[in-house]
């Protein structure tokens, strides 16, 4: 695990994500979710490449029930791309690195 992806939660979601000056990608995950663990290395990879332009965060839905509720998340892994405090796009389920890169490029 690198430090490229910041762990966030209910308490600091607003400060870290909604008030962020950079666009933010939040990976909503849980430890018992196989596909979440499968997509995590891809997100880490992307964070290393695009970390200077986009802030990469992850939110454990098991420990932080409020935030996923706010965004009506009913499936994980869900990645939400935020820009200027609002949802720019959303991706649920497994995705390849190329698919995620395409979405990232529209944010930058």
């Amino acid at each position, binding site marked *: 695990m690198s430090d490229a992806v910041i762990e966030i939660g209910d308490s600091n979601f607003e400060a870290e994500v909604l008030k962020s000056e950079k666009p933010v990608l939040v990976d909503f995950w849980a430890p018992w979710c196989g596909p979440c*663990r499968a997509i995590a290395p891809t997100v880490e990879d992307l964070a290393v490449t695009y970390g200077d332009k986009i802030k990469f965060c992850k939110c454990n839905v098991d420990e932080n029930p409020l935030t996923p509720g706010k965004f009506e*998340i009913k499936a994980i892994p*869900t990645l939400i791309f935020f820009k200027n405090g609002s949802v720019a796009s959303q991706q649920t389920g497994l995705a390849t690195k*190329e698919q995620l890169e395409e979405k990232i490029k529209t944010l930058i």
Partner: protein
Amino acid sequence: MDKNDYDVVIIGGGPAGLTAGIYAKRAGLSALLIEKHTPGGQIMITDWIENYPGFPEGLAGYDLTMKMEQQAKNFGLEIIQGDVKSLETDSKIKKINLSDKSVNSKTVIIASGCSPKKLGIPGENTLYGKGVSTCATCDAMFFRNKDVIAIGGGDTAVQETLFLTKFARKVYLVHRRDKLRATKILQDRILSNEKVEMVWDSTATEILGSKSVEAVSVKNVKTGEIKKIEAEGCFIWVGTLPNTEFLNAQIKVDESGFIITNNRMETSAKGIFAAGDVRNTPLRQVSTAVGDAAIAAFCADQYIEGLS
């Protein structure tokens, strides 16, 4: 030999692919496994596996995956993440084209597995991730004390529905026939579970909801009657489709798209083998996948010896 050249390239990192890797490396072959996401395959989303011998207490799909991956790595299997776009199988050296590069290999073992089949009904795609799901272990917790609908009647549908009952208030299991296809032991468990209401002889026709799932329209195939069942979740387990979008016409498939092999796991293209769920096999289990893969790797080794 170029550094992009291998004795065997394995496509797919589920139980079949990882097993092929273990056998290939132990046979002294140079081997590369290409996986689209992360090794694991479909068992990664399986809550509990209790029919794979050697684990009398049963174990989580993810844990079995991790053990297999570790075992393959212990023997030096090289694993990369990549999306196979096409295969060139004409000549002695096969070419595997990925989105960003190509690799050459004397043999290829296709172990790309299956993906969940879709119903093809309105609402299925638009509400995916908004109540529609194919992964109970991932998403069941979002439906704590809620009513949910599950669709299917095979082992996967029944096993995963049982998992849903740990969270949901009630699960309607919609099945198109009047009896389940699932293994007897699973049938007994589901039919005696108080949280489960069977909806027999029925198919889902539409998933309804504006922002998230609110109800599912269900049609009785015998009477034609359509009723709306209110639920916040809809889990779909109606079989699988082979992951074969990269195949060429030289590799023959059956009418459902599964790769045809002989009992040496050889496909119709020389030097190309197939193993696991992607093959036209009567049973798709971890235990059958690993058996296929051991044979495929063994026969790939024999094929390579025959080349020289």
